[in-house]
């Protein structure tokens, strides 16, 4: 109890001392919170995206076969399908039709895809929520598409895919095979790629190798590659995340260096007076330790709380302009909350601990000096 009281007395004194330099410390907490907020937001969003991608894409085709000509994906002949089906271990092989459509009237890119979605009738289509938002289209509306030969193909909106599925379907335009061929000009007897399902998922690598040997002009992409792509695509080492991280870490290094390189004359004077009135060196260090804890822990907790609200309740609103890039059609989705305690622990050890340590070192130096000389400095 006595020990607890001693700590509380020192915290009371520390808080009073911090409040005496209210402006400086408030600014410090604000900047610190902002840095933690930025880092935590990046960590939360990337982790949630990776987690969501890996759970949703488990149902992707097990192998996708693309035909590559001069380094680019080309249409794949329908004759490949039968030969792929003959490979031992292949359960089914199905040609897929999909492609892109640039809508010059709104400047948006759509993904056209052939599917047997409920309406399935020629002249009708099913669209993603993002497409509907961009075109201001509703069920029953007629939408014109400029075909490859310059003619206009009109399709009626059968229905709009749900908001919940926007993360995978926002830019989709699902249509019939004939409508797809009319718009894109894909000839009969050719597909965009082939989706293969295997009897035993453990044999995927062997099947992919057999396909590669049978058709040297193809590139089989197995499901593990797709999942690993999403595991690594928002890697911390990647692109702008690295810049954000490096910038934030650099700011911390400068802050810690500034703290470690010396105390202000006011702080030195305070330490001198405390020593003069009988405080032990350990008391002074304890006071400075609590000072570091008060600032860094408060900033860390505030930063994490704001970051969580920002990512999972406000749909990363502040990141939206960066995430949108040049996309006219941008999906609006809410990520499934996912927090990895290890990431929080890493963030804690990268932010709170270095700052607290950096606060103690110069205080220890000042506290071990003669009080008289410290006050005269």
């Amino acid at each position, binding site marked *: 109890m006595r020990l607890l009281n001693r700590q509380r007395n020192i915290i009371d004194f520390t808080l009073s001392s911090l409040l005496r330099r209210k402006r400086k410390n408030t600014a410090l907490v604000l900047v610190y919170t902002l840095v933690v907020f930025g880092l935590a937001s990046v960590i939360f969003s990337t982790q949630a995206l990776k987690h969501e991608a890996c759970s949703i894409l488990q149902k992707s085709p097990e192998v996708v076969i*693309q035909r590559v000509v001069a380094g680019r994906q080309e249409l794949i002949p329908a004759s490949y399908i039968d030969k792929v089906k003959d490979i031992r271990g292949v359960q089914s092989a199905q040609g897929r039709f999909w492609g892109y459509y640039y809508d010059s009237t709104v400047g948006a890119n759509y993904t056209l895809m052939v599917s047997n979605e409920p309406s399935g009738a020629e002249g009708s289509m099913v669209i993603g929520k993002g497409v509907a938002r961009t075109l201001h289209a509703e069920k029953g509306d007629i939408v014109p598409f400029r075909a490859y030969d310059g003619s206009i193909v009109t399709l009626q909106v059968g229905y709009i895919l749900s908001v919940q*599925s926007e993360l995978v379907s926002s830019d989709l335009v699902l249509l019939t095979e004939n409508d797809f061929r009319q718009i894109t000009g894909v000839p009969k007897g050719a597909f965009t790629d082939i989706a293969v399902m295997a009897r035993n998922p453990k044999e995927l690598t062997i099947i992919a190798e057999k396909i590669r040997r049978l058709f040297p002009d193809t590139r089989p992409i197995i499901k593990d590659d797709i999942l690993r792509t999403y595991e690594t695509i928002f890697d911390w080492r990647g692109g702008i995340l690295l810049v954000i991280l490096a910038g934030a870490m650099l700011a911390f290094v400068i802050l810690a260096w500034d703290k470690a390189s010396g105390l202000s004359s006011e702080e030195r004077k305070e330490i001198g007076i405390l020593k003069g009135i009988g405080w032990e060196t350990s008391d002074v260090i304890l006071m400075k330790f609590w000072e570091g804890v008060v600032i860094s822990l408060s900033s860390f907790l505030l930063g994490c709380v704001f970051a969580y609200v920002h990512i999972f309740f406000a749909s990363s609103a502040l990141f939206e302009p*960066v*995430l949108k890039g040049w996309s006219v059609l941008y999906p609006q989705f809410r990520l499934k909350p996912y927090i990895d305690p290890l990431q929080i622990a890493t963030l804690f050890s990268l932010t709170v601990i270095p700052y607290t340590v950096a606060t103690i070192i110069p205080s220890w130096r000042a506290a071990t000096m003669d009080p008289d000389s410290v006050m005269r400095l």
Partner: protein
Amino acid sequence: MFTRKSDFFFLFIAVNLCALLLFFLHDVVVHGNVQTSLREKSEMVERLGLTDLCLFTDARYTRHPAMADLNTPFQDHPTALEHFPSGTLEGPPLHLRSK
């Protein structure tokens, strides 16, 4: 009740810790809705044979990174620089890193 400055500090820390704890529990509380939404998305992926998330629609290799050409980084010319902003947010796909 709260007379000392340290009381307010501990209260502040406790409130924040409770908020963080609630966020951990938030996942459990919204679990039902989230599971429905995840199931819906998974079913759509299976039904349509989708391979990618619809995150960035500005370039084909950011819309379908898993299906991107092997020459994606140099698609315009051999020393081309990435010019789509979303290309700086995504790292290169794994199959391009390992080559």
